[in-house]
C-alpha cells in the first residue's frame, strides 16, 4: 500500500465518535455533584454564620467579645465576653489530648510494630468499636461513673460537673481516631525500611522510634490534628459532664462551659430569633470556625515542613 493513499480519507474511514456515550456524561456529572456538595455546604455554613455574626458585632464591639471576661448572654444587660467559653474549651481540649495522644500513639506503635498479626486482627476492630459509641453515652459515663465513683475519692473538693471528667473521657473517646490513623500511617511504611534498621543492629524500639515514626510522621500529625479537631468540636460529653457554667478559670475541678456546649444549650432553649442572645450563638460559632480553620492551616504547614525535611 502506498503511503500517500493512507492519508486520504475519501473512502470514509471515520474516526468520529460512532455513538453518543450518555452514561459517561451522566457519571461525570454525578461525581462532580458529589464533589461539590461539601464545598457548597461549607460556603453555606460560612454565609449563614457570617450574616448573624455581622449583626451581632454591630451591637457588641469585637474587642468586648474577644477580651471580655464575663459571659452572661441570657441575663438582662448580659455581657458577651467570650474568654470563659474559650478557657473552658482550651482546658477540656488540653486534658483530652493529654490522654489521647500518648495512649493513641502508644496503641498504634504496639499494633503496628509489636503485636502479632493475630492480636492485631482482634485488637484493632475492638479499638474502633470505641469510636462507634455515641458521645452522649460517654458523657453520662463521665458524669455518673468517673466523677462520682472515682474522681471524688481522689479530689474530694471536685464539683459534680467538672472539666476534668469531661476531658478525660473525651480523651478516651479520641484514642481510636488517633490510634487507627497513626497505625495506618505506620503500616504504610515500607517493610524495607524496617529491615534496613534491624540489619544495622537496631532494637524494636529504636526501629519504631527512629525509623518508622519519622517516616510516618505526616500521617501521624494528621491523626493528631483530626483528634484535636474532634476534641474542640465535641459537644455532648461536655454538655452532660462539664456543666453549663461559663467560668474564666484553668481549674479543671470546677464546672465549665465550652463554645460548643454553649451553642447546644442556647440553641435548644427558647431564644427569640433575631435577639442579641440568638445572634451570639452565631458569633461563637464563627469564632469556633475561625479557630479550627487556623489550626488546620497551621497543621498543613507543619506536615509540609516535616515532609520537606524528610524527602
Amino acid at each position, binding site marked *: 500500500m502506498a503511503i500517500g493513499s493512507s492519508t486520504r480519507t475519501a473512502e470514509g474511514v471515520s474516526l468520529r465518535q460512532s455513538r453518543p456515550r450518555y452514561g459517561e456524561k451522566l457519571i461525570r456529572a454525578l461525581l462532580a455533584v458529589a464533589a461539590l456538595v461539601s464545598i457548597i455546604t461549607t460556603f453555606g455554613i460560612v454565609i449563614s454564620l457570617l450574616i448573624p455574626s455581622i449583626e451581632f458585632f454591630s451591637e457588641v464591639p469585637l474587642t468586648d467579645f474577644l477580651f471580655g471576661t464575663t459571659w452572661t448572654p441570657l441575663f438582662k444587660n448580659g455581657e458577651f465576653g467570650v474568654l470563659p467559653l474559650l478557657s473552658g474549651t482550651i482546658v477540656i481540649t488540653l486534658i483530652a489530648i493529654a490522654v489521647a495522644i500518648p495512649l493513641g500513639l502508644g496503641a498504634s506503635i504496639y499494633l503496628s510494630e509489636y503485636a502479632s498479626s493475630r492480636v492485631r486482627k482482634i485488637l484493632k476492630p475492638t479499638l474502633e468499636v470505641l469510636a462507634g459509641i455515641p458521645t452522649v453515652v460517654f458523657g453520662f459515663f463521665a458524669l455518673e461513673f468517673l466523677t462520682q465513683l472515682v474522681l471524688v475519692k481522689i479530689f474530694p473538693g471536685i464539683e459534680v460537673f467538672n472539666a476534668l471528667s469531661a476531658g478525660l473521657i473525651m480523651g478516651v473517646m479520641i484514642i481510636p481516631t488517633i490510634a487507627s490513623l497513626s497505625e495506618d500511617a505506620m503500616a504504610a511504611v515500607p517493610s524495607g525500611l524496617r529491615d534496613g534498621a534491624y540489619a544495622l*543492629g537496631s532494637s524494636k524500639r529504636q526501629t519504631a522510634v527512629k525509623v518508622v515514626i519519622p*517516616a510516618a510522621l505526616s500521617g501521624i500529625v494528621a491523626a493528631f490534628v483530626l483528634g484535636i479537631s474532634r476534641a474542640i468540636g465535641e459537644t455532648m460529653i461536655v454538655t452532660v459532664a462539664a456543666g453549663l457554667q461559663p467560668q474564666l478559670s484553668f481549674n479543671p475541678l470546677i464546672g465549665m462551659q465550652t463554645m460548643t456546649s454553649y451553642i447546644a444549650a442556647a440553641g435548644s432553649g427558647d431564644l427569640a430569633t433575631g435577639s442579641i442572645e440568638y445572634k451570639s450563638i452565631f458569633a461563637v460559632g464563627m469564632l469556633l470556625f475561625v479557630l479550627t480553620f487556623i489550626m488546620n492551616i497551621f497543621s498543613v504547614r507543619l506536615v509540609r515542613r516535616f515532609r520537606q525535611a*524528610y*524527602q
Partner: protein
Amino acid sequence: MNQPNNISMQLDKAMSARGVSIPIEVRDPVFTLDDVSVFYGDYEAIRNVTLPIAKNEITAFIGPSGCGKSTLLRSFNRMNDLIPGARVEGVVAYHGTDIYGPDVDPIEVRRKVGMVFQKPNVFPKSIYDNVAYGPKVNGAKGNLDDLVEECLTRAALWNEVKDDLKKSAYALSGGQQQRLVIARCIAVKPEVILMDEPCASLDPIATAKIEDLMVELANDYTIVIVTHNMQQAARVSDRTAFFTAELDDKDIRHGRLVEFGRTRELFSSPTDPRTEDYISGRFG
C-alpha cells in the same frame, strides 16, 4: 549465553584487580554452615546446606528463582527472625559460635553481619543522618563527621554528595542510594556484609560501580552476595555456590545446594550437570 572463555577472562581480570591468589581450602572460615535447613512454618524452603564462608572473600550464591538462596542469606544475620513462623535447623556458626544458640542476641549478630537489600532502602532522612544512624543506635556519641566522611568515601560516594550532606537521601539516584546503603552498613563496622541482589534494581553503569566497590571492599570485609546475574558472580566472586529447586517425593519444592567451589573452576569445569546446564543457559 556465556562462553566459558569470556568468564575466565572476566575472572582473571577480577582476580588481578584484587591482587590476591585464592587459597584452595577455606582456612579460618568466618561462617560455617552445617546441615542448615530453613523453614517457613511447615514449608522447608532450603534443605541441608553445608558450606564455609571464607574471610575477606566474595562468595556468590547463584541459582534459579525459588531455590532458597535469599532465604539462606537471611539466616546469616537472623533476619528470618522477623518473619513469623520462620525457623532454622542445623548450625550456622560464626567463628565457631552457633548464632541460633540460646545466649545469642540477634541484635549483636546484626552489628557484626550487615546487610544490603535488593531495593535501596535509604531512610527518609538526610544523607548524613542515614550514615550516622547505625553508629547512633549502637551508642556512638559526639561528632560523627569523620566517620560519615570515611564511610561515604569507602562507598565511593563522598565526591558526589560532600556538598549535599544535609539533603534528603531520596534526592539521590538509585545507584547512589545503593552506595549510600553500603556506606550506612559499613558505618557500623561489621565484619561481614550480606548483599541480596544489590544490583537488581540498577542500570548497568550503576551496577558496574557497585561491583567495583564490592571488589574493593573485599579487602576488609567478607561479602556474601545473592545474584541472578551469572556474569556478575563470575566478575566479582571468589567462590560460588550454585543452588537449585528440586521436587521431593511429595512433589514439594525445596532449595538444595548443588555445587560449591572456586568461581573460576565452577564456571569453567562444573562437576554437576545441573550446574553446567544452568551456567550455559540451558535451564533457569
